[in-house]
C-alpha cells in the first residue's frame, strides 16, 4: 500500500514538472502518428516493424527518466532521510520504479488501442495477429522501455556525478535498434552482438515479413527478461551493500532466484532457436565459397514410403523413417543424401543399428556396417535438428519448408543453393523427389494453422502420396478457395483474392498450349493448391527463384517486401506468368538435372516470349536478358548464337511450338555441352528453311 502511495506521490511530482508529461504525450502521439500514416498505406505489419524510431526515442526518454527519478531524490538528499525510516528507502525506490512501469504499461495500452483503431479494417479477420500485435508492442515497446528505465535507474543509483551521462549514452547506443550501425557483425564473426544487445525491433532495416509476421519468439522474450533482471540484480546488490535491505534468508533466497532466472534467460538466449534475421548475405556468402566440384547425381535409391515426425519448438527437430531400395548396379557400403547444412544430424539408424555418418556442408554420407547389393532394402531412421536461415522457417511462429528444399533427406547429391559464377546470383537447387512416395507426417506445431500439399487426415497428421515431396507452411496465413482452387496466402493480402481468376485464366491458356504442343514429357495443369507466399529475400534478384511447380501444388513466390498487393496479379501478371513458365520448364525436377543455369535462363526467356505471344501478351524477356548481360561469359561467346536466335525468332517456324526444335532444345538443358549443341541445332533449322 505504501509503495502504491509512493507511486502516486512521485507520479504527481513528475506531472507537476510539465516537461515530463509533455515529452510523454509527445512520445504517444509520435507512435500513434506512425500507425496512422501506415494505415493510409494499408501496412499493418510495417507500421510496427518500421517503428524503430519510436523505440529509439522512447529508449532515451526512459533512460533519462530513470536517471532523473534517482537524481531527484539525490538532489534533495532524501536518501538519508528515507533510510532513517523503516523500509522508507526501499518503499520510495519501489514507488519510483512503479512510476516507470505504470507509465510504460499505459504506453503499451494506448499505442495498442490506437493501432487497433486505425488498423482494424485490415486485421480484424485474423485474431491471432491482433494477439501478436499486443505481444509485439509489449515486447519491443514495453519491455524495451522497461530495460532502459531500469538501466538508467540502476546506473544513476550506483554512480553519482556527470559520468552517468556518457554511460547512459553508451547503453543507448549499444541496446537500441540503431546499434547495427556500430556493431553489425562481419562475415567471419561468430556472434551477432547487434542482435543480442538490441532490445527493440531485431531487424530495423527489414520490411515486415507477411508470412513470418512479427518477431515475437520466446528467445526474444528471454532476452528482454535477461536485460531486465541485470539492473534489478545490481539494484539488489546496491541496496544490500548500503544497508537499505537487511541481509536475511528471504533476501538471499530472492536474490538467488532472480540470479538463477537471469542465468537461465542467458542460457536460453545463447542456445536460441530460429529467429527472423535480416542476414540474407550470410547464406549467399556461404554458398559463394561452397565446394561444388563433385558431380551432382541422383542416387540410385527408391523410396516408397516415408514417415516423418516434426517438432518446431525452437527450430526444426525431425525424425524420419523410410525404407530405401538400393538400385545401384554395383555394391556399395555408403549412402549419399543431401540435407541442408543447418540441419544437424544427431543420429542415424539402419535396421535399428547405429551407423556412422558424416555431414559435409549439405552432403550427408552414411557409412554402412557392410556392403549392400542391388535391390537390397534398408530401413533408415534419421534424427536431425537446426535451421537458422531466414529463407526457410520452422519455429513456433512460422513454418516454410517447401518441397524443393532438402529439409527432408534428398536423394540428389547436390547442395541446397548455388551461386552462379557469372551473375553472382543465389540460386535455389531443386530437391523435389519425383518418386511417388507415400508420406505420413506427424507435426505437433504449437503455432498457427499448418498448410500442406498433403491432405490432413487427423489433428497434427497429414498423409498421402506425392511426386514432389512435402511443402509445409504456417504463419500469418489464411486459405481462400476460388474456382475449386485453394489459395494459401498471407492474410494481409486478402484483397488479392478477387484477382486470382485473372491469373488462373491465363495460366490455363498457357498449359493448354504447352500440353497440345507436347513441349513437356508430361502434361502440366494449374494445380488445385497454390501457395502464394513472400519467399524471395532481398538478395533474390532472380524472381524465378520463388515459383515452383509440382503436380499437386504450385508455390507462387514474390518478394517479402510486398505487404498489401491490391490488384497485384492484374498489375504484375506478366511477371507471374514468366515465373510460372519458368517453374514448368526449369524449376521442374522431373525433367532432369539442369547442367548450366545460364543456358536454362536463355531457354526460358526465349520460350516465354513465344508462349506469351500465343496468348496475345507482349513479352520481351529474351531482349531483356540480352541487355542484362547475364549471358556474357568467357567460356562460351554468345554473339553468334544471339544473332542466330534473333533470326530464328523472327521466322515463322519459331511460332510452331510443336516443332521438334523446342523439344530438342529442352533436352539440351540436361546435356553437357549445351551451347555448342544449340548452335548446331539452330544451324540445322536454318538449313531446313
Amino acid at each position, binding site marked *: 500500500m505504501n509503495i502504491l*502511495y509512493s507511486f502516486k506521490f512521485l507520479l504527481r511530482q513528475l506531472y507537476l514538472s510539465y516537461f515530463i508529461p509533455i515529452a510523454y504525450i509527445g512520445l504517444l502521439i509520435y507512435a500513434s502518428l506512425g500507425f496512422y500514416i501506415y494505415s493510409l498505406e494499408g501496412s499493418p505489419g510495417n507500421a510496427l516493424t518500421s517503428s524503430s524510431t519510436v523505440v529509439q526515442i522512447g529508449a532515451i526518454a526512459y533512460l533519462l527518466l530513470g536517471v532523473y527519478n534517482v537524481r531527484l531524490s539525490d538532489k534533495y538528499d532524501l536518501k538519508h532521510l528515507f533510510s*532513517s525510516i523503516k523500509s522508507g528507502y526501499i518503499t520510495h525506490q519501489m514507488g519510483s520504479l512503479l512510476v516507470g512501469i505504470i507509465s510504460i504499461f499505459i504506453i503499451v495500452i494506448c499505442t495498442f488501442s490506437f493501432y487497433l483503431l486505425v488498423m482494424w479494417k485490415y486485421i480484424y479477420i485474423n485474431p491471432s495477429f491482433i494477439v501478436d500485435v499486443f505481444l509485439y508492442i509489449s515486447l519491443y515497446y514495453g519491455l524495451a522501455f522497461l530495460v532502459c528505465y531500469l538501466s538508467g535507474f540502476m546506473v544513476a543509483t550506483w554512480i553519482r556525478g556527470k559520468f552517468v551521462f556518457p554511460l547512459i549514452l553508451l547503453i543507448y547506443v549499444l541496446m537500441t535498434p540503431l546499434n547495427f550501425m556500430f556493431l553489425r557483425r562481419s562475415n567471419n564473426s561468430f556472434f551477432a552482438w547487434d542482435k543480442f544487445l538490441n532490445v527493440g525491433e531485431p531487424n530495423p532495416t527489414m520490411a515486415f515479413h507477411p508470412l513470418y509476421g512479427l518477431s515475437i519468439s520466446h528467445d526474444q522474450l528471454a532476452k528482454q527478461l535477461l536485460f531486465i533482471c541485470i539492473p534489478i540484480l545490481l539494484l539488489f546488490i546496491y541496496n544490500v551493500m548500503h544497508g537499505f535491505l537487511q541481509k536475511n534468508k528471504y533476501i538471499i533466497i530472492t536474490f538467488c532466484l532472480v540470479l538463477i532466472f537471469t542465468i537461465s534467460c542467458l542460457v536460453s538466449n545463447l542456445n536460441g532457436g530460429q529467429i527472423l534475421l535480416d542476414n540474407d548475405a550470410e547464406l549467399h556468402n556461404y554458398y559463394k565459397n561452397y565446394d561444388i566440384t563433385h558431380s551432382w547425381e541422383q542416387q540410385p535409391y527408391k523410396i516408397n514410403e516415408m514417415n516423418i515426425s516434426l517438432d518446431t519448438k525452437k527450430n526444426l527437430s525431425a525424425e524420419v523413417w523410410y525404407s530405401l531400395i538400393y538400385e545401384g548396379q554395383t555394391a556399395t557400403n555408403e549412402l549419399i543424401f543431401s540435407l541442408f547444412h543447418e540441419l544437424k544430424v544427431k543420429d542415424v539408424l539402419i535396421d535399428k543399428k547405429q551407423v556412422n555418418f558424416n555431414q559435409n556442408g549439405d552432403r550427408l554420407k552414411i557409412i554402412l556396417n557392410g556392403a549392400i547389393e542391388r535391390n537390397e532394402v534398408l530401413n533408415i531412421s534419421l534424427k536431425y535438428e537446426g535451421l537458422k536461415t531466414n529463407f526457410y522457417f520452422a519455429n513456433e511462429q512460422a513454418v516454410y519448408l517447401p518441397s524443393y528444399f532438402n529439409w527432408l533427406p534428398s536423394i540428389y547429391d547436390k547442395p541446397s543453393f548455388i551461386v552462379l559464377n557469372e551473375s553472382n546470383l543465389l540460386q535455389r537447387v531443386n530437391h523435389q523427389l519425383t518418386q511417388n512416395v507415400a508420406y505420413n507426417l506427424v507435426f505437433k506445431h504449437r503455432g498457427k494453422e499448418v498448410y500442406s500439399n498433403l491432405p490432413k487426415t487427423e489433428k497434427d497428421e497429414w498423409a498421402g502420396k506425392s511426386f514432389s515431396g512435402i511443402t509445409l507452411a504456417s504463419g500469418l496465413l489464411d486459405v481462400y478457395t476460388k474456382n475449386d482452387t485453394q489459395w494459401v496466402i498471407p492474410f494481409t493480402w486478402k484483397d488479392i483474392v478477387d484477382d486470382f481468376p485473372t491469373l488462373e485464366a491465363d495460366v490455363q491458356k498457357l498449359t493448354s498450349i504447352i500440353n497440345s504442343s507436347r513441349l513437356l514429357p508430361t502434361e502440366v495443369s494449374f494445380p488445385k493448391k497454390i501457395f502464394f507466399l513472400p519467399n524471395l529475400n532481398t538478395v533474390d534478384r532472380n524472381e524465378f527463384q520463388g515459383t515452383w511447380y509440382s503436380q499437386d501444388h504450385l508455390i507462387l513466390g514474390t518478394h517479402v517486401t510486398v505487404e498489401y498487393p491490391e490488384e497485384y496479379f492484374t498489375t504484375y501478371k506478366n511477371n507471374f506468368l514468366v515465373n510460372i513458365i519458368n517453374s514448368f520448364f526449369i524449376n521442374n525436377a522431373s525433367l532432369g538435372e539442369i547442367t548450366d543455369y545460364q543456358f536454362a535462363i536463355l531457354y526460358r526467356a526465349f520460350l516465354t516470349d513465344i508462349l506469351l505471344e500465343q496468348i496475345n501478351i507482349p513479352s520481351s524477356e529474351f531482349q531483356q536478358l540480352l541487355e542484362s548481360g547475364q549471358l556474357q561469359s568467357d567460356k562460351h561467346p554468345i554473339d553468334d548464337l544471339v544473332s542466330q536466335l534473333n533470326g530464328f525468332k523472327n521466322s515463322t517456324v519459331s511460332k510452331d511450338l510443336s516443332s521438334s526444335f523446342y523439344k530438342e532444345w529442352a533436352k539440351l538443358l540436361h546435356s553437357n555441352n549445351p551451347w555448342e549443341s544449340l548452335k548446331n541445332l539452330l544451324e540445322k533449322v536454318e538449313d531446313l528453311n
Partner: protein
Amino acid sequence: MKIIHVKNIQKRFNKELVLNDINFDIKGSFGLLGPNGAGKTTLIRILCSIIQPTNGEIYADNQLNWKDSNAVKSNVGYLPQTFSFFKNASVYRVLEYIAKLKGISKSELTNEITQVLEETNLMLQKDKKVKQLSGGMLRRLGIAQALLGNPNLLIVDEPTVGLDIEERVRFRQLLRKLGKDRIVLISSHIVEDIENTCDHICILKEGKVVVTGELNDLLASIDGKVKEVFLSSEQLNTLSNEIISIKELGSEYKVRYVPSNNSNLFQGTSVSPTLEDFYVYNMNHGDIQ
C-alpha cells in the same frame, strides 16, 4: 526512553577510522559539538540506524538495542543537515508522504499531521509548496516530518545552517520546546545552537570524544579560567594562542582569553564562562578521552 548508552563505538570506512571508542550517554536535550570532520554526521547516521558501527553497541534504558535496526527506526525522528523535498509538493503532501512511509495508519494520519503542523507552527503554510517556503519554514517542515510517529529520539543535524538570526532564534526555541517530551540530539558546529538548546553535551574531535557531561557542570569546570581584557592591535599579537573571541570596539579590542604565561602581562577581569569559551578551551587544552 530516558537514556541512550553509547558504548565503545567504532566505525571504519575501508581502512579509515572515522569514529574511535566513543562512549557517552544521551539524555534530555543533548548537543553533539565538534568541528567539521569530527565524525558527528557518521555518529548520527549510526544513531539513526542508517549505517551500522564496526564495533560497539548502543542501547536504551528500556531495552531497545541498536542491533534491531527496524525497531530503532520506529523510535527515531531524523532531520538531516540538508533537508529539502520535491519543490512542487505542498507542506501537507510532504508530511502525508513521510507519514505513509513511516507506516502511520490512515485513521491516525490527519491527526498526526495536524499535531506536528501545530507543534512546528506551520498550520498556515500547510498548502504552500516547498519552493514557496523560507529557509526557516523549510527547517520547521523538516522537524515536522521528523516528529511524525511521535519518536522517542529526535535527531537534528546542523539545525540552523542557512537560517537568518531571527529564524535561528525561533528554531532554537522550537527545539527547546520539543526536548521537554523526548530526547533531542542536536549535532552542530555552531556553539550557540547547542548552548541555547541543550542541557548535556559531547564534544567530538577527530573521531574521538573530547569531553561529555551536563552543560552547567562543564562550564563550572572552567569557572575563573576565562578572562576579558581591552587591548590595542599591537598587544593582541602576543595573545594569539590564548584568545577565545575578539570584538572590535573602535581603536580597541575586547578580548576573551584563557590566561597562560604570556597573558599574565595583562590584568584581565574574570568573566562567567560560556560554552564557546569551554569549547575553545577544550579544543586547545582538553585531553581527548
